[in-house]
Structure formats: C-alpha cells, structure tokens
C-alpha cells in the first residue's frame, strides 16, 4: 500500500489553454491577447506621468513581488516542487545588493546579476538534497530555511557584513543624467524593464523543450524519467532558476525600499509569496503579475475595512477570493474566456 503525499497531491492539474480558432465578439482570441498586451504596455509606460510618486512607488513594489512570485511559480507551478522558503532567496538577493552598494559602493545595476547568480548557485545547491523530499516533507525543509533566515542574518559574527539587527541603509540611485525623471520614476521604469525581460525569458523557457521537460516532471515523474529526462538535473536547475528570479526581486526590493533588516524577511514573506502565487494563478505567467498586485494592495484594502481586525479581514478576503476564483485570477480569466468564446469563421 503506498501512502503519503506525492507531487500529485500538492500541485494543481495542468491549466487548459483555450483551443485556438475561437473568438469572442467576432475578434479572435489571438487578437484579443495582443490588444490586452499593447494596452497593458501603454498603461504601464504612461502611468508614472499621471500618478503621484507614491503610487509609482507602490506599483514598483508590486512589480518586484510579481517577479518573486514568478520565481516561485516556476518551481511550484511548473515543476511541482512545493516551496515555503522563497523568502530566504529574496533575503539573499536583498542583502547581496545592500552589501555591494553599501560596503563596496558598486552601482545598483550590477547588484541584480550578482544577486541572481548567487541565488542560482544557492538554489541549485539547495535543490540537490531536496530531490529526496516530496510534498509535505519538502514543504517542511523549505519552511525551515525560511524560519532560519532571520536568525542567521542576526548572527553576531556576521554583523560586520549584515549590519545585524540594525540593518543596512542604501542610497537611492538617480536617473541617468539627461532623462527628466525623478528617482521614483526612474526606478519604476528600471524595474519595469527588468520585469519585462524576466517575464519574456520565463515564457520562452516554459515553451521550450526544457520547459516541457520541467512540466513533464511535474505531471508524471516516472514517465518523464522513462522518456530519458534527467529529472534530478532538471529539478535542481529549476530550483536554481526559481531562486534566481526571487533573488533578483530581492535585490530590486532592497534598492527601492533603501533598507534591509532581518525583520523584513520572516517566514511570513514566504507565505505572502505563496498566497500571491495561488491568487494570481498557479502555472500561469501573467497570473504572477496579478499575484504581485494582489499581495501589495490586499492588506491595504483589509485595513480600510477594519483596523482592529485588519489581519482577520485579510483572511476573510483570501477565503472569498478562493471561492470566487479557485484557480486564481488566471483561472477565472480562462473560465470567462471559455464561456464567452465561440468558434470563429
């Protein structure tokens, strides 16, 4: 009798893409997708010109969370490995950026590839022993990583580097000379560019042979292995890439917030990423964008409803969202599209 949580128990069934050849209101789905993409780009590019610097700052943070959630999505949504520990990679990325900028006075844009590289290696190394674990057991191992991170950051012998409990300050970078942008706007566009690049890369990864191998491992590891896919290598690599994404997000986060401290990276952050992943849509790349927006703005909404019960209201909203969209925002969009779609021609 086999018992226990295998990967099937933890990850959702593969999302169904609406078949091509369908149309809504006479316009093909393909054209619709293009429309939304163009609209999204236009809105994203012009927003800082109308919104105040505070909203620009908020959207920059939402984009950063979206990148972190995309990292988690690659691992959990596309590869079926459950991680509750991505706050650790976010922290590594953030501290890498902070130490480089504060102690070695390296320019901010170099911190991103550095953070990514370090997290790629750390993620890969973590992924190796994680190969032996599945489902709930992997959850615990990653959760242990998340819980241990603040304590490691506070460890006295490391204080010279990490700033200990006091944290590290970073100066905000200015826009390149010649551009009529203030710091917030520049950081917004910079983050937007990074986000776009990372999302495009993720999309091509998922659509490539490697992507198919990764998803095959999620859906049926035994079949995948018998087809010749080196599951061990791919799983560890995915861990690494996933950590890379979240690490880059962490570095960006540090630059934008201008401050890192152990308290910013508790396991609650890892839980937040998971919530963003699910609400946005597991296994959906645009869903990660929605997830980023959700995790930034939902707490604010909850607080407006009731300050005394702020966390409680947040919990209620989460549950209601799951009722309304059990497969996340991406799932809801898919559902609506399928309802409205008719065969074209």
């Amino acid at each position, binding site marked *: 009798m086999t018992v226990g949580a295998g990967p099937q128990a933890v990850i959702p069934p593969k999302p169904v893409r609406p078949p091509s050849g369908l149309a809504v209101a006479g316009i093909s789905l393909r054209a619709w997708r293009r429309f939304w993409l163009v609209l999204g780009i236009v809105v994203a590019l012009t927003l800082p010109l*109308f*919104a105040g610097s505070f909203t620009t700052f908020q959207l920059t943070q939402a984009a950063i969370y979206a990148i972190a959630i995309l990292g988690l999505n690659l691992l959990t949504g596309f590869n079926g490995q459950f991680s509750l520990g991505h706050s650790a990679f976010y922290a590594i990325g953030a501290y890498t950026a902070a130490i480089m900028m504060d102690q070695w006075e390296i320019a901010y844009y170099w911190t991103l590839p550095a953070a990514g590289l370090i997290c790629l290696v750390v993620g890969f190394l973590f992924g190796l022993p994680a190969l032996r674990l599945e489902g709930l057991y992997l959850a615990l191992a990653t959760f242990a990583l998340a819980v241990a991170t603040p304590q490691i950051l506070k460890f006295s012998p490391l204080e010279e580097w990490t700033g200990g409990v006091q944290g590290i300050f970073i100066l905000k970078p200015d826009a390149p000379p010649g551009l009529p942008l203030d710091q917030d706007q520049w950081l917004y566009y910079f983050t937007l560019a990074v986000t776009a690049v990372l999302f495009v890369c993720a999309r091509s990864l998922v659509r490539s042979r490697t992507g198919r191998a990764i998803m095959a491992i999620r859906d049926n590891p035994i079949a995948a292995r018998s087809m010749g896919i080196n599951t061990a290598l791919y799983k560890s690599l995915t861990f690494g890439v996933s950590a890379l994404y979240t690490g880059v997000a962490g570095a960006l986060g540090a630059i934008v917030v201008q401050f890192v401290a152990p308290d910013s990276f508790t396991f609650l952050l890892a839980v937040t990423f998971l919530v963003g992943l699910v609400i946005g849509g597991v296994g959906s790349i645009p869903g990660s964008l929605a997830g980023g927006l959700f995790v930034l703005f939902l707490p604010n909404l909850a607080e407006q409803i009731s300050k005394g019960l702020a966390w409680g209201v947040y919990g209620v909203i989460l549950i209601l969202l799951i009722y309304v969209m059990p497969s996340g925002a991406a799932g809801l969009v898919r559902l609506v599209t399928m309802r409205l779609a008719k065969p074209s021609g």
Partner: protein
Amino acid sequence: MKMTILAMSLLSAALAGAAFAGPAAAADMPGVTDTTIKIGNTNPYSGPASAYGTIGKTIDAYFRKVNAEGGINGRTIEFISYDDGYSPPKTVEQTRKLVESDNVAVVFQGLGTPTNSAVHKYLNSKKVPQLFVATGATKWGDPENYPWTIGWQPNYQSEGRIYAKYLLEEKPDAKIAILYQNDDYGKDYVQGLKDGLGDKASSMIVAEESYETSDPTVDSQVINLKSSGADVFFNVATPKFAAQAIRKVAELGWEPLHLLNNVSNSPGAVLEPAGLENSTGIISAFYHMDPTDSQWADHPGYKEWLAFMDEYYPDGDKKSTFTVFGYLAAQTMEHVLRQAGDDLSRENIMKQAASIQDLELGMLLPGIKINTGPSDYFPIEQMQMARFNGTNWELFGEIISGEIGS
C-alpha cells in the same frame, strides 16, 4: 482598435490624475488647515506584533478626547494611522502614503526600531518631523545628523546603565547571567549594561542566553543560565517570556538578584501570571505608573487616565501598560501642538518639540519631567528604581538621570 486604445489611455490618465491630486492646504503649513491638523502614524495592527497596535488605538482615542474638548487652538486633530504589520518595507510604503498622499503635518509615534529605521532618512530628507518614535533605541537622539527625528521614552541603553551602576555600588563582585530577546531591543539593553560596567563587564558577566520570539518557552535558556553559577539575573524579555523566566527561576530553586527590564515589570500583566511570590524581591526601573499597581489607585493622575479609558477607549485593556504609554505620548504631542500656537509649520512644530521644559504629566512618576533642547533629543531620561514587595513596587533611591555617552 487604435482609437479604443487611445481612448482608454486617456480615460485612465484622467482618472489617475483625479484620484491622485492632493487636497489643498496652506503652502507653508502642510497638513494643516484652518480647522484641522493631520497627524500620521504607523503601527502593527496585523501579524505577530499586533499586540503593540493597542498603542495606536489609545492615541486615536486620546485625540478624540482632545477634539471633543475643543481641539487645539481651534483646530481638530485628524489622526491617520496605517498598519505596517511590523514589516519595514510596508512601513516605507505607508509612511510615503502619509507624507505624499495624505500630506500629513508630522509623523508621530511610529512603532518599532527596524520600522522607524527604514523611514529615518526619508523623513529627514523630506523635512517631515518624525516625532516621539515608539522605540527605546538610542539612535533617535541625534539632532546633528537627523534634526527631524526625536525619541520619547527612556532609551534601553541608559536603563541598562542604571542597572550597571546599581550593581557596581551594591554588589561589585556579582556574577551576572543575562537572558535577552535576540533583536535590537534585547541587544540594546545588554549593550547598556556592558557599557555601564565598563572594564569589569567581561569579568562580571558569566553567561548570556538569547531567545527568538518564535521560541515557545525560555526554559532551556534559564537552565543554562542557572548552571553558570551566577547570582544576578538580568531579565531582558518581553512580558510573556519574562513571566516564563520568573516562574522557571523559582521552579529551579534559583534565588539570584533579579533585575527586570522596564518593558515587562507590570504587576498585573507579568508578575501575577508569573506568581507574586516568585516575583518578590525583583528590582526594576520606572518612569511611569503602572495601572495595575494598587499604590496609585487614589492618585489624581491615575484617576484621570482611568476616566479617559472608560469614556474613550472602553474596549481597551486596562491591564496593559501600552495604554498608559500611548496616553502619555499623545499628551506630549498635544502639549507641543499647543505650544506651537498658530504657527503649525513643520519647522515650528519641530522647534517646539525640541524646546519642552519641565513638562509633568499625570501618569509619569512624581518628579519625572519631560525636557528637550536643541541638542537634547531625549525627552524622558529619568527613571526611578523600585523593588517588588509581593503586592506593589516600592520605589527607592532618587530619581536617576540616564546619561548618554558617559
């Protein structure tokens, strides 16, 4: 298709412009109109630190009282407090919202050290007063580098120094064991004690054990501390863990000289659960009255506080020192605003905050006064020591001034 995109872009731009336009206010008195003063605040109302949210709620209640009694120089206070869940990035977001979106006059009593640290430079660069921060860290009293930030409560390091001085006088050959919370609060106290002991620190301190707030109990730490053979126990823990430690010490049959930090010395909230017998003989330092200490029951200051709680914050926990804390801080803010008169520019409010003279408030210990000056950004520096006799805290000695950098 292109027309639709253009139309939608224009529409969203218009909406954005309308939504984010700020309210009209006097150009040189941001956050202030003829009838209102906006005061901003961040507090943890959600997450594991939500216990401290009581402070924010108390301040809100107190400003409602002020408004109900006529306001300040004809203006009512609009207190805007946002939840930051004790997460520094969230504090940055909420503080920027207060300053850039809500256009508050000042940011008052933000809670926590890492959270205030995150917005320290921002508020100073924007020249927004960061008043009376709700943390005992020492870094807030630095007028030269951060002229817009000022602390409030006696800082942890000076309290540590007070205990050090006491030990050097009363028990110079003591062997000290320390239990401390592994964060800025705990480490600050330990630093203060070590600074106060000077050269003798390394010989007198024989054991140090830290704990995380996620630890269920501190039993194992206390066992280690006892086994060090120390005869003085410095208890730098928050209420729950302090009570656990007091009880464990008694259970182990250990009878050290027990020094308890100010954050956790409430009879009703800590000593009673720990066991009044177990707590007899503990020494601590005070700057305000504790609402559960029966010796203050007839004091007019206490009665005023009680009346305030009954009327404006009846749901509040009358056993919690957080309510006294918030009450006193709000009164300090009120005093500063009254002193500012009609000039409620940020510069003047800051100036008034830095020129408080001998302010005595009802719930402060008799004899303790609030004083600030252009180079003295520590409003409350005095404390008095007390010993618990099983029922009340018996104050002894004189009012001590914790000196910084001495």
